[in-house]
């Protein structure tokens, strides 16, 4: 296990400047995700400004990104360890369906507890196999992806499960506090929580260390296995929370809940600057990534782009965005050292 080779040349974000020069300028330079977002917002303003910035649409946008936002945080912490979790979508579905169906889904609070437990169990299984059995995260979570989705279908025979407390869930999903939907507030609280854990605690430092150089982490006495396990469990909890938020938003545990969310979450994490081989990535980037994809989807809808073309647009946007980012980067690179490190 010597040199990594996920990308032939290090990805832009993978190349930290040797000296963290002027902090503000340096920070701004590396925030290309932010520029993509700004560009998108400009496009939105020009094409559909009044509607896009309207209160209704902003509320919608916030709602649309809060669930995926929480899932993206889960994906981020896993990616930071050098892993990947493609089961987040299915796990969210399972948490939502069981929270809606268990005991008939009599209360919103009970639903939260159930969803968190389901999420934690899935995360614990993934994490156990990855950390204690040393399996590839991709294949483990691929298995879990199929397993959890299968259980979703089997639990409700494919028919949506409406909890007894559907009305309370619907109410929760619509409630706003000073104009901000509670679901969005939950997301933002989670953002703050994960940022705190990653940047301010010993645990967070260890997560980065493991992702960057697992050998060095181990030989420095860091409990690699338990830390890794805790990462997957925390990710599971976040996903469970996402499942519960799904109920709050849609008031029904549909069998497609969370479908393909994993791709969006990974994309958001990566476009936000995290490195898939681990050790590098910021919460802020993940949040920006989340917003980018939510704005893209929203904008394509607002522009009433044909269903046939939406996927093509989305794909082309991703390609253009990441390519532009490297152009900026390679200019910077020419100024410094290419083969450095």
């Amino acid at each position: 296990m010597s040199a990594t080779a996920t990308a032939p040349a290090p990805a832009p974000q993978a190349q930290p400047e040797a000296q963290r020069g002027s902090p503000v300028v340096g920070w701004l330079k590396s925030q290309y995700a932010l520029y993509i977002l700004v560009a998108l917002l400009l496009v939105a303003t020009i094409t559909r400004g009044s509607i896009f910035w309207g209160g209704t649409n902003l509320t919608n946008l916030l709602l649309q990104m809060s669930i995926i936002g929480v899932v993206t945080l889960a994906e981020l912490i896993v990616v930071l360890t050098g892993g990947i979790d493609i089961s987040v979508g299915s796990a969210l579905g399972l948490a939502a369906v069981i929270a809606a169906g268990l005991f008939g889904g009599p209360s919103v609070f009970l639903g939260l507890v159930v969803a968190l437990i389901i999420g934690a169990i899935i995360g614990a299984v993934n994490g156990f196999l990855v950390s204690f059995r040393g399996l590839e995260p991709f294949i483990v979570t691929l298995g879990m992806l199929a397993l959890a989705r299968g259980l979703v279908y089997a639990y409700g025979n494919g028919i949506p499960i409406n909890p007894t407390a559907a009305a309370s869930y619907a109410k929760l999903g619509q409630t706003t506090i000073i104009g901000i939907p509670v679901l969005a507030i939950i997301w933002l609280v989670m953002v703050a929580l994960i940022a705190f854990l990653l940047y301010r605690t010993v645990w967070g430092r260890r997560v980065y260390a493991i992702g960057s150089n697992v050998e060095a982490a181990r030989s420095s006495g860091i409990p690699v296995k338990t830390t890794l396990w805790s990462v997957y469990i925390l990710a599971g909890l976040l996903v469970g929370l996402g499942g519960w938020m799904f109920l709050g938003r849609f008031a029904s545990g549909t069998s497609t809940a969370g479908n393909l969310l994993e791709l969006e979450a990974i994309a958001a994490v990566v476009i936000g600057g995290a490195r898939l081989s681990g050790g590098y990535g910021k919460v802020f980037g993940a949040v920006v990534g989340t917003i980018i994809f939510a704005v893209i989807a929203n904008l394509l809808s607002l522009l009433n782009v044909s269903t046939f073309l939406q996927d093509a647009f989305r794909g082309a946007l991703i390609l253009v965005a990441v390519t532009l980012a490297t152009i900026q980067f390679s200019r910077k690179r020419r100024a410094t050292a290419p083969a450095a490190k």
Partner: protein
Amino acid sequence: MTTSTSPDGRPDEPEVLFRATGVKKHYPGVKALDGVDLEGYAGEVLAVCGANGAGKSTFAKLLAGVQPLTEGEIQIAGFPHPVRNAAEAEQAGVLMMFQEPLIIDDFTVGENVWLYKLREGRDIRPWATKVDANSDETRRVLAKVGLGGLRTNQLARDLGPGQRQMLSLSRAEVTTHKIMILDETTASTSEEHFNDILDLVRRERGAGTHIMFVSHRLNEVFAMSDRIAVLRNGLLVDVLKTSETNPDEVTTLMIGQALKALDRPKPAQTEGKQPLVSVRDLHGGTAAGVSFDVFPGEVVGLYGLVGSGRSSVGRTITGQKKAASGTILIRGEEVALSSPGQALDKSVVYLTEDRRLEGFVKDFDNGENMSLVVLPKWSKGGVIDATKERSRVRELIDEFQVKGGPKTYTSSLSGGNQQKVVIAKWLESDPDFVVLDEPTKGIDVGARSNIYEIIHGVAAREKGVLVISSEAEELLSLCHRILVMRNGQIVAEFDPAEADTDDLIRTALTHQD
């Protein structure tokens, strides 16, 4: 192997093989090289000396085209224009041996020898590979660099750092080149391999190759080189003829002051004390039945050839690797250390010889790397005390003379400075017992005495230190007691006051059994 201008190995009319003029290399915030003019001649060994971070590796990398110049140019004889990248440098005939050897782990030893056959250009042989990987030719080449014992179809992944270094060196035997750069190739090799390197260098030199040799070991520099170029802070201070200078002059040029000769340490007072660590009949890795004690306040040296089992001992008694059998007692109490974490709980730590793989976290800055081990102590309820971390890291950087700030990425430091960061990381945890595996690997002579002082400081606080080193001289001037290993066993013990380098080397080499 290529040009032949040297009738007796010492050209009177030197043929210039490379000429660097006004070479500058600036990294953001660092002037690694700031205007260097240097020539290299055919059939000579040019040693490049300088303190850590002086710019030696940087110059070597520029010559090898691995990194672009900021300013100036390097002309290589026979090549039409200044080289711009690694591929061109290679065409021009430059062979670079990196400080961290580049080995393809998933290839066999044999395949790694012949790696150049995969390169671009006319050497491509599209439908035939594997031809040489297991041939007698390969074995002969490996034997020349002291790896005759390896099987050619063994995976390179399983080699130790010293073996990796020699393996990458074996490529010199199979490629054609005019300039060969050895960047601290000897830092992780022992005397035995040094002789192989010496032979190789002599052969190359005889064939008219220019050899650039970077090392902190002045005895090697004087044994090998024809000229010595001294760098300081990115500037070329002087180029001396080896025959006309002496180590003192070179050190003075390097670090700006003469180095006082190191005294042999006074024997440690161990009478009547309970051993801090007792190892009994330890088996594990290449260690086969090792027993010894380390007393509080003692610095014990462990000497031996590459593969004699020193690192295996160090790793098994610090929980880095599980022991196959044997007992380890700490202060008379038997312990089972099955992970570095457990060892850390017992205040037992191991400084790795494999900096690249286990030493530091590449995405961390110096501050984060230095605090990696002690972080729990600098935090409350798992929350890091940022102020404390910041101030303590500053102190450490000063104490260990690291060239770089707390926010500099450790991976961008020069090799020696990285080593200092790693040592600081471990010693800051204030261990009761510390195993230092090749602690001064790549550290310059100036900083070296500073590190020795720190090590003695640790011992003075009634802690135990076990130093593993391939440099007999180093152990003699650092340790209270020296154990010599051979074939996985401890075969002799020396008092540094009554032994010299020859004793150690002879004991390590002799095959009495």
